[in-house]
């Protein structure tokens, strides 16, 4: 089993719902708090999931894209072998990459090793923190089954995010990756992320140039 989140970039409007719902759940969760420095001045806080905004192309042919970025829960997670204490580990049963705060010595080697820059250091506790795929939600049997998914998936207002087992060929996430040309970030680095994204799908216009010219030619 390899749990994952698939984000459909054809539906992400960059609203940061996922960024905040992550913080909201996790700051009071098993792996919290998710602290903030200087909250009422130059505030700079810890976020396990950050939405990146991008602009590409020249006016007027410019595209704007948003991409939520958190731990990729890689198959070959570079953060795991570099950890001197074994605090960073990948669960055998579901593929979730976690940090054991009791074992973490705060050396931050994992932060250097991570190609995606998604690990953050809690100076107060001296440990590295990051996305857990809301492991304390998805394994919490006191929650109704429909709530046993990451907060960021549940909150997404366009339903751009889907949670599930990438290795179950019948799962929604496996279907999406197969049918929608799912891709990973920086595949050339070889970490083999579990987290996938779905590309944009364009719905083109259908009026042909000849018709436009005809209408224009008739006095427009």
């Amino acid at each position, binding site marked *: 089993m390899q749990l994952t989140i698939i984000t459909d970039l054809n539906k992400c409007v*960059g609203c940061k719902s996922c960024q905040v719902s992550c913080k*909201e759940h996790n700051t009071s969760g098993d792996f*919290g708090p998710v*602290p903030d420095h200087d909250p*009422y001045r130059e505030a700079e806080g810890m976020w396990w999931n950050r939405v990146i905004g991008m602009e590409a192309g020249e006016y007027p042919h410019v595209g704007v894209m948003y991409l939520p970025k958190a731990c990729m829960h890689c198959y070959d997670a570079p953060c795991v072998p570099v950890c001197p204490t074994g605090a960073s580990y990948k669960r055998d049963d579901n593929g979730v990459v976690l940090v054991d705060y009791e074992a973490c010595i705060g050396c931050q080697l994992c932060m250097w090793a991570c190609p995606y820059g998604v690990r953050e250091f809690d100076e107060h506790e001296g440990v590295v923190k990051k996305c857990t795929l809301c492991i304390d939600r998805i394994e919490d049997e006191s929650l109704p089954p429909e709530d046993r998914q990451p907060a960021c998936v549940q909150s997404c207002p366009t339903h751009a995010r889907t949670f599930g087992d990438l290795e179950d060929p019948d799962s929604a996430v496996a279907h999406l990756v197969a049918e929608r040309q799912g891709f990973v970030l920086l595949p050339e680095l070889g970490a083999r992320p579990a987290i996938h994204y779905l590309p944009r799908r364009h719905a083109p216009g259908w009026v042909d140039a000849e018709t436009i010219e005809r209408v*224009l030619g008739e006095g427009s």
Partner: protein
Amino acid sequence: MALTKGTAMHFPLENGSDLGRTRKVHTTCFMCACRCGIEVTVEHEQIRFIAGIKDSPVNKGVWCAKGGAGIMTQYSPARLMTPLMRAPGSERGQGELVPVDWETALRTVAGWLQQIRDTDPAQLAYFTGRDQMQAFNGYWARQFGTPNWAAHGGFCSVNMAAGGMYSVGGSFWEFGWPDLDAARWFMLLGVAEDHPSNPLKLAIGRLKDRGGRFVVVNPVRSGYGALADEWVPIRPGTDGALLMAMMHVLEREGLYDREFLARYTNAAGLVTVAPGQPEDGLLWKDANGEVLVATGAQTFTPFRQAGGHGRLEGVYTHAGRTYRPAFAVFQERLTTCTPAWAEAITGIPRRTIVRLALEMGTTALQHPVVVPQPWTDFYGVTHPQTVGRPVAFHAMRGLAAHTNGFQTVRALFDLMMMLGTIDRPGGFRYKSPYPKAAPPPWTPPSHRRDYQPGQPAPGPLLGYPQTPDDLLVDGDTPLRIDEAYSWKYPLAAHGVIQNVIRNAYDRRPYGIDTLMIYMSNLAWNSSWNTLETRAMLQAKDDDGNYVIPHVVVFDAYDSETVAFADIVFPDTTYLERWDAASLQDRPISEPDGPADSIRQPVVAPPPGVRPAADTLIELANRLQLPGFVENGQRRYQTYADFLQGWETSPGSGVGLLAGFRGPQGTDQYVGAPNPQQLQAYANNQAFWYDEIPSERKYYRMANQAYLDWAQSVRFVPTADPIVLQFYSEPLQTFRLAGQGLWPGKQPTHPALRARLATYFDPLPFWYPPLEEQEATAAEYPLLLITQRPMTHYHSWGSQNAWLRQLLMENPLFINPQAAHALGLTDGQWVWIESRQGRMTAKLRFSDAVEPGTVWTWNAIAKAPGAWGLHPDAPESQQAILVNHIVPDTLTSRDGQVTFNNDPITGQAGWYDTKVRVYPSELHEVWPKVAPQKPRRADMVNLPHLRYTTRKGGGR
């Protein structure tokens, strides 16, 4: 809450009996105005988690960044904890406020108000902002007897609301909605990231899943626009020209729904052609007042008897008088509105305009969606199925916030009528209680004698004038302090909040005694020409007295406006009070059915804090306002009492909440007040929703089964059809008044006459925003606009510790081509100068903005020290408030002071600001305002926040 350095927070942190318990409470979000249902998890009496309610008709289980960050708004150090009074000897605006006890605050304000009510109730101006209790506030002001009440719509989007109401008896957002579950083609105009939040995101997500085509018209590409299949950059203020040109193409290509126009709109109505005569431009009517249409060369038939066979074209004469169908008049107008004409105005290539028009026209006319649902229209004709035209639109302030916005919105609705997309599958669909008559037949009391000392006003204070006779004028003189319903702003359906302070300062039309403000930041981002506005609040007369003697502010947070108050009443947060999203106000209905919802206290408020509505009820009781106090008895002690007990008129059975009425809570819509109603809502996840049966879901303006039912539930006074107003005859009556041809009220001043004659066209047209008519317009070649970030828009809690991290400074975005032409570089400090003044900004290049526009984020900048933030916080040091240079008035050419408002509705033209941009020698934010002293000095320097609701905090 675990805070380092042992900082104490003055909130009820741990309640012994609840220690260790977790509970979930359902309520309605108020982080913005979208009213999503939220489930709040409370652990150890602190907010553990806020999530969407899955069954909520609004947000269907999702929630946004603002909604989740509501936790931090709840614990904001900007919270006001006691009533405050301006410190003796201090000046207004310094923010030197001292705590006072509730009795002193209440007694003081009640004393001022009693004096006003006993002498001249109009001396109270009560204006509110983003509140969601306008039904209550309007009733309070009416019972007080002042004409001077409104919410913030004049500064917001009244053009959208009024333009829709005068056209189709509905509009966007609360009034109606694009049906993206069935649309194949969707055009979003003038909406970037807002309005509304989650519902529009959900809908766009579904459109994307279905592969529908998404076209975004906006000067800026961001937010929703990122997902557009086609971005159509447009010059601000020119959307009306685009819409007219698209109608030109549709008309010429025959791509419009003739049957729909003739059956359900007044496009076939015969317009009297009699220039210079009092009947000119009015619709020809029979003795019963029914509009006549031509059903033959010499056959004229009342609209409802014509069965949709009224002719759309031709010229007709009868008894020596000439008539033309409204549509024919419009066709003639469209002939000059060519794509080439629009290209020169909008900057959109003519080929693009033609292509978009053909796309929407062919989709609507040649690819209908069919719902297998029979329905019967008001003609008595049963249609075997419901056919839809799957072209949907949604629009907001990009159209509305211009001084030509009303006519632009009219153009959009006429376009939708031409395409036949009103309340049909895949098009625009109403939300209950809409549709209403277009416009609804409610008008505010219009005589000076209607506002007498010691008396309530005889009717609701806002409405929809049908003719000039409904205006609140005495000759040329307005009756209201905001000049709503005056000759300058006749259809000011939401009031004109932005006029209040300058008019009160100028004592035009009269001075006031007390300005009461609820949840509106009039000393900052809810004003324009901000610095002068602040100075007006501080101004004194020759005797050293404030020109506005008393300013009373209700707010939960230490806003910029609090610093300008003489007395402050601290309000609760939305998680601490009873409240309602009412069908009488701004409901949460969906196209498939009416809905409303409540708020209920999730946690207890701090001991010194009371809900603003409870405070207003206490004031009403002390003033013994009729309706609140009857025979010496107080009818309501709290707003919760009011929510359950108030009726639109005694015994009407219609109140604020439509669900769970009657003594058993089993009635809906109409039923006796139920003292257990709020509890019933609480037991039902805080909302009520009643799905409309399928045969009544579409064509509601003409669906007889729907109209009969709507009358029975009091949505409409009669079951008469609601004829869509392709041609707006009420506007023509105002034009006649401007031409001196109206038999009733008329203005005398030539400038007032000219405004009416020019702008009150019964058919839509495009004209340049009034700012373009300023003599200096050419000196300011760029347009300055704002966009509302999804993480902050409409949020009264954007200062909160989490949201502010998402956006705390705002550069000025400029197209690189435009910047290069001006010799400007990325990251450079510049002056932005309008005719109002200048300010600095840091430039940032973006190709996602059209070259004639510069823009920045709205709602980021704050005054130093305001909102509980450190005076050095980026919001005051790195963020800019463009309101400073948005002109509030037009340059006078006629001795009149005229606001920079739409001449029809009074909507603020805050997207019309023209600027020039040039290098700045000053490399910091300017202008600066004096810092306010943060009320929680301990919190602004808090080094760490480690929020958790776990006992003991953290691990």
